[in-house]
């Protein structure tokens, strides 16, 4: 792909991107969110037509009018969110849309082919298994299998590690290397530096719609790539001193809660959060974290056990009650939980702070006062926006998150629950959020960091607990546990098994 330009009303999503991928290599496409990766891949896949530039496959200029053309040209895409029908078998999913011209499905022949491909790349997939019975990691392999079945020689993986455990990620790397050995070309889209180093041969870095560099992976460093990606020098690690934990601020004992529809009930035997520490909660998404967060924010009623904040019983409290007891939140979903996107910034600062002074007096909103505070918070937390009247929707993800952090810290809470606080943020904003969490800890507040990114948890936490199957299955002092051990626990092994492994 050379000199690709794609404009949308108001933005230039791709502004002269060149991506040259050699046959048989694993090529990482590295860039922050919004850098133009998805647009570029959609162009490659025929979903968008580029305004300028040339797309060529095997030196032949092509112009796809849709994904079907791309598939016929040997391209295959594995999306971040799988496109599989849970109740169908693996084979049924794979032949979906390509059932052949005859009236009768030749399922046996298809299943035989699926098995052949699966075995030749060590995918270990049973063609007759129902997709709903497979783990996320295996479902992803079904997607890869699907692409191979349709004859893909160029495989595009969009953020393929987002939902995987560390072990599953290792397995994926193995599969990709086998595919490469067999001559398949792989484009690996990511914003994680470690993945680039682990799996790719070459890497193209894009920033703000432009190619800013192409490097041979073995000849570059993570720091160089990060600087390229962000466009300035960034620090990849957070400097922090050892924690000095104080009194227990939040404690949960034998906590159970109503399950989310279709999930198992949450069961937390013992969870404590102490002043001046960062407690990391790691685990694979969908193991009870959503329930835990809702319970700790007063949105989900508990059915048993005790939950206390600052020694105040919070078992029956609503979100305002938790705030009064001294909790603040950085919710995981900025767009649906953290902000009302169509509200101006100052009304978003009001959200959750409207119980009384200084923003509300006798039921009336003090607009001027709220705007003044918002302006101050914007200055203190470097929220880049024209004015407090700007709608939250207009801000970048990083600035939205800064506003949320500013709002939540404004109440001077004792506990800060940070739920995936860096999800979808660029490297610069991640750096800011991480520093802020450490600063809050150093002020003597308790911080809980719940993240699906194990590296983030390990980098920042003073103490780590693992969530698996709606329970806490392990607790460790940071630095006294290996990544591998945590990974095994996250994958559902129990602590003693993990130790032996």
């Amino acid at each position, binding site marked *: 792909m050379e000199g690709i330009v794609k404009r949308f009303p108001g933005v230039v999503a791709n502004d002269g991107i060149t991506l040259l991928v050699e046959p048989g290599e694993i090529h990482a496409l590295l860039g922050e969110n919004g850098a133009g990766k998805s647009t570029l891949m959609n162009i490659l896949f025929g979903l*968008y037509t580029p305004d300028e530039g040339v797309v060529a496959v095997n030196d032949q200029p092509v112009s796809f009018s849709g994904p079907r053309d791309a598939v016929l040209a040997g391209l295959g895409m594995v*999306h971040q969110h799988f496109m599989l029908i849970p109740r169908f078998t693996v084979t049924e999913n794979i032949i979906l849309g390509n059932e052949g011209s005859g009236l009768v499905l030749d399922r046996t022949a298809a299943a035989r082919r699926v098995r052949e491909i699966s075995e030749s790349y060590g995918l270990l997939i049973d063609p007759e298994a129902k997709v709903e019975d497979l783990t996320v990691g295996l479902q992803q392999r079904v997607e890869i299998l699907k692409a191979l079945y349709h004859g893909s020689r160029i495989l595009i993986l969009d953020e393929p590690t987002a939902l995987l455990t560390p072990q599953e990620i290792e397995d994926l790397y193995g599969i990709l290397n086998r595919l490469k050995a067999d001559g398949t070309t792989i484009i690996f889209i990511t914003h994680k530096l470690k993945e680039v180093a682990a799996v790719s041969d070459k890497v193209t870095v894009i920033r703000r719609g432009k190619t800013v560099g192409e490097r041979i992976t073995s000849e570059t460093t993570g720091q160089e790539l990060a600087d390229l990606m962000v466009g300035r020098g960034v620090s990849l690690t957070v400097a922090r001193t050892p924690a000095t934990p104080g009194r227990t601020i939040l404690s949960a004992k034998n906590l159970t809660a109503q399950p989310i529809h279709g999930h198992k009930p949450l069961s937390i035997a013992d969870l404590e959060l102490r002043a001046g520490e960062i407690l990391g909660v790691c685990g694979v998404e969908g193991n009870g974290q959503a329930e835990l967060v809702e319970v700790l924010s*007063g949105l989900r009623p508990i059915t048993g056990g005790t939950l206390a904040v600052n020694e105040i019983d919070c078992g029956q409290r609503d979100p305002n009650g938790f705030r009064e007891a001294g909790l603040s939140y950085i919710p995981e979903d900025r767009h649906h939980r953290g902000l009302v996107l169509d509200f101006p910034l100052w009304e978003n600062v009001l959200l959750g702070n409207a119980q009384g002074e200084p923003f509300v007096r006798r039921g009336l909103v003090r607009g001027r006062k709220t705007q003044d505070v918002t302006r101050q918070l914007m200055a203190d937390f470097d929220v880049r926006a024209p004015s407090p009247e700007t709608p939250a929707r207009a801000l970048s993800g990083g600035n939205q998150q800064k506003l949320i952090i500013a709002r939540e810290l404004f109440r001077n809470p004792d506990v800060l629950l940070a739920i995936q606080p860096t999800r979808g943020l660029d490297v610069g904003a991640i750096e800011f959020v991480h520093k802020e969490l450490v600063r809050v800890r150093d002020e003597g507040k308790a911080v809980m960091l719940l993240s699906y990114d194990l590296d983030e948890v390990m980098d920042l936490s003073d103490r780590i607990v693992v969530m698996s199957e709606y329970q806490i299955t392990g607790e460790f002092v940071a630095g006294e546990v290996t990544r591998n051990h945590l990974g095994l626990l996250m994958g559902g092994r129990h602590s003693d098994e993990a130790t032996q492994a």
Partner: protein
Amino acid sequence: MKRLKLSSGSIVNIGGSIIAVAIALLLGALVMRLSGADPWAAYKALWNGAFVGRRSISETLIYSAPLILAGLGFAISSRAGLFNIGIEGQLITGGFVAALVGAWDLGLPSVIYVPLALLAGALGGAVWGFFPGFLKARYGAHEVITTIMLNYLAIRLITYLVLRRDDILPVDPTYVATKKVVDAARLPILLDRTRLHAGILIALGAAIVLWWVLFKTRFGFNVRAVGLSQGASAYGGIKWGSTVVIAMVIAGALAGLAGAGESLGLHGRHWSTAPGYGFTAIAVGLVGRNHPIGVIFSGLLFGALNAGGPAMQSAHVSKEIVQLIQGFIILAIAALEVVNRLPSIRSRMARRASAGA
């Protein structure tokens, strides 16, 4: 019904409304042209009928008053995230109850009687707004279904009461209406030798109060937050259920006031035939972008169309063309909304297309 909710409803969107009205007038002209009439003459007649002369202006204001009030009712329910098709039922319930109180001849002086009858009308509408709000908050029953059902219920119930219960109520089965509202309960006439009653003042006052409530009070903040993002408002500690119920009660009360103004001001009784203002009010709310001040202007616009419509007959155009124009306005608003969202819709379709690959 989410699709029908317009993006932000701020007064900034007023440009869209003006474009929509312009498109509708052009389409209306096209239809008149095709049917062999002279659109220019027709619009001139419409203008004269709506704005030229004291009688025309007062007729426009008379039509506008219930449309503004009912449009405000639609606006606040929309702000809370509900699609309230029940304005019609809330309006006629309010009109009926107000007329009953006014026809009872309680022997009160005007200063007490008029507010009392208005209050009764507001309460009647409020009750009719409470049910769908409560059913939504408590059982998740969709307001579109419940409000439509309550519309029918209101119409049938009132017809029954005026036809059969003249033994206990001040109703007149021969007219299929309530008895006449006594003079002491009638809204005062603002302008001699016209029918212009005080309803328009009530409507303007209500718009200003609603604007204040929505944008200056915590309750209004809660309503808007709930309507824009249930997730974020729950996180912010705002109780969705009670907010929705109160918003619907207020919506019903405003629609009830619209009906009360008709009974106590214009007609002097409540006729059981429904004028359909409750449905026009939806358009008024949409064109006014669910902003109280915007609703004043769109209410005046629709009032002018209704008032000026009959005058178009002098240009050999059927007055029903006005209904057509109103329909075009709604279509244009919806179409503009789709155009607005096209980028996001297109990218969603692209994603779906790639999923099918």
